[in-house]
């Protein structure tokens, strides 16, 4: 499974990378929404994108709208990970098509549980 980590902070990218790598994910990183779109255009189809909101060049909200407008990426799970924690901001992000939302600061358990809610660890139930 593959995670695309999108945040302009190298520190935050490394924190998220450690969490998902320990869950068995491979990772790719991008420093802003435009870089992330370039990665998708180049052919990567991640299972999940972890997306910061405030980034230079293209913010996370815009990235979400661009991904959700493109049928190629309809199965990509989009989870925002951001300090934007006003009620209205979360509503906007979900309306734009984000599947889940984690408020910074977070603990690894929070990311893991949200990924479980999204069905990313769904196992085949033995018959």
């Amino acid at each position, binding site marked *: 499974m593959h995670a695309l980590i999108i945040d302009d902070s190298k*520190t*935050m990218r490394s924190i998220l990378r450690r969490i998902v790598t320990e869950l068995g994910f491979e990772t790719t990183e991008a420093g802003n929404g435009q870089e992330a779109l370039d990665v998708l255009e180049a052919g990567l189809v991640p299972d999940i994108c972890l997306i910061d909101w405030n980034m230079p060049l293209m913010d996370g909200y815009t990235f979400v709208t661009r991904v959700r407008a493109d049928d190629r990426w309809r199965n990509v799970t989009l989870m925002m990970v951001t*300090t*934007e924690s006003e009620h209205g901001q979360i509503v906007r992000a979900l309306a734009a098509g984000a599947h889940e939302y984690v408020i910074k600061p977070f603990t690894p358990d929070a990311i893991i549980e949200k990924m479980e809610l999204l069905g990313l660890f769904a196992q085949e139930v033995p018959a």
Partner: protein
Amino acid sequence: MTVTLEPSLGDVHAVVEEVWSSFLGAEEPILPLATPMPPGGWSAAITVTGGWDAQITVNLTDAAAQAVTSTMLMCPPEQCSDEDLRDALGELVNMVGGNVKSLMAGSAVLSLPLVGHGDISPGSHLVEVCRLELTWRGEPVVVTVHLPPAADPS
């Protein structure tokens, strides 16, 4: 009707505590004690503009800044470059500032963080409205909120 123009000290403290306990507090929590801040050290600031205008700053000694960076990047302090420190402290103030921003009414925009070493204080025209003096691993950590001088009521 009173309009709240500044966050409460308790709320800012809660924000800082949550940031610390999520990423930095595994071995030692951040304590509500004031320790004298020596000159120099690092300063990380972020501004909020729009529905609310403010600047949030975190001041740390070299030792605390290195410890923050080392903990968040999970690498030994001596291997953390200045660039690493700038990035880690920038994310730290991003989280503190972003959550302080969301305490206040109105929609506002968070700037990119500004991190510097040496004596950096907010512009002298800004008014300090909130000052949190804390101690982590024996080092002082100071978080301040500054506002532009009050506008005349219209």
